[in-house]
């Protein structure tokens, strides 16, 4: 165990270009996923929080349940959709980073939307009458609430980023773990573990952990700063 750990550290100290490329792709895929999922999930979650419509409770339960959606299931579904024999086969997107972003977006949107709904709904209780007195439409309410909760919503977005970075099932299936093209940190870890190269897996795992920790540290300080600034 200790030897494996020491070896992992020595591997990290001489990060080669291949590892850097893997980390960079992970980062790009996560960034694209989170951007897309945020653009969809934030307004959607806020809408569910604010609007009253039949089936709202069902949508809420559905969103919460989808947070725990197994990534492999999403992977298989997106695979079948993007496969040449599937409905979007002629786009030829399978085994590409774009496919990985699509699958992960499906995974991350419910997560961000569900957390957003929770955060925005709490704020909505405070503001509802006030907004009505200002004759806000649904759109205005959603926009104002999202803006007001922006620093809390960082947590929701971050949860999405964490899931995207650490998820392996979906990207493995739709990305194919192709070296130099769709190999990201998690699939590389899976492969190196399969090859019995535990130090390299551990080294990549540490990079992944560091990245996620850095992200969360940044978010933590952003929130502290926001609390001091906006009360």
């Amino acid at each position: 165990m200790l030897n494996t750990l020491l070896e992992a550290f020595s591997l990290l100290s001489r990060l080669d270009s291949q590892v850097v490329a893997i980390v960079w792709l992970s980062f790009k895929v996560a960034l694209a996923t989170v951007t897309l999922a945020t653009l969809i999930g934030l307004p959607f979650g806020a809408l569910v929080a604010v609007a009253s419509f039949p089936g709202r409770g069902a949508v809420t339960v559905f969103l919460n349940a989808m947070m725990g959606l197994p990534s492999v299931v999403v992977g298989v579904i997106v695979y079948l959709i993007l496969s040449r024999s599937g409905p979007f086969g002629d786009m030829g997107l399978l085994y590409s980073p774009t496919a990985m972003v699509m699958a992960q977006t499906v995974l991350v949107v419910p997560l961000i939307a569900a957390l957003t709904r929770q955060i925005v709904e709490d704020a909505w209780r405070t503001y509802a009458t006030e907004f009505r007195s200002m004759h806000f439409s649904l759109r205005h309410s959603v926009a104002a609430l999202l803006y007001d909760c922006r620093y809390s919503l960082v947590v929701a977005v971050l949860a999405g980023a964490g899931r995207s970075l650490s998820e392996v099932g979906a990207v493995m299936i739709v990305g194919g773990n192709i070296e130099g093209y769709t190999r990201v940190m998690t699939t590389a870890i899976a492969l190196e573990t399969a090859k019995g190269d535990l130090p390299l897996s551990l080294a990549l795992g540490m990079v992944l952990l560091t990245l996620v920790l850095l992200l969360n540290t940044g978010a933590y300080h952003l929130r502290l700063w926001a609390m001091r600034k906006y009360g």
Partner: protein
Amino acid sequence: MANFFRQLIIFFCAMLLGGFAQAEESIVVSSTTSTEQSGLFGYILPRFEAKTGIKVKVVALGTGQALDTGRRGDADVVFVHDRPAEDKFVAEGWGVDRRDVMYNDFVIVGPKADASKVKGTNDVVEGFRRMAAGSAPFVSRGDKSGTNSAELRFWKDANIDPKAWADYKEAGAGMGPTLNMAAAMGGYTLSDRGTWLSFKNRQDLEIVLAGDKRLFNPYGVMLVNPAKHPHVKKEAGMKFIDWITSRDGQETIAAYKINGEQLFFPSAKN
């Protein structure tokens, strides 16, 4: 502030659309975990890519899955090791132009102590009988891979139904994870030599039986039938098949060694 966010979003979208674009020509080869995990592709593909400028994207799966991937049209070339399944694939019209590429051999790997005394024989079927009679577990791939179907053929030859045996464990995983399991359980397994040689977490495992002619493990390559899947990159795919069965390709395969040991032996008929 709002302006800044807008620019950020535009930047992201541009990156999303442009960042993953791949200019060079490429083909998808669905292949087996054994070829990928043994490091063979990492060794031979740069040479092919440098020669032709065609990027080869390898998706490593079990042989059964690799053939399914070809059947669905999600690969241009299939490169696997299960002759009966390959012949069926071609006969059904999913693949064309199947060619022999190389072979390696399977080895039985087990704990050094060799409680089931497999080391005492050179006959693979006898080895399987001894494992079934012994107390140590046997870890099977259980994933419909080429290695898995070879293993099942040996059980059949030995007239043993392994599923009736409590210590028969199906990993449902690639060769590497299966070796990890065997190492952890102190059990036996059937592995291709390539993966075994490049496998690092051996712990107490070693080869207990090898060299029987029946352990011969041939690899074949074929193009996914463009008549069934018109988008298949026929030209680039054929360039790959031609190269890997060419003298240059074959020599490159033969030159791949781990610790001085050759992993794959060329077998293309030129």
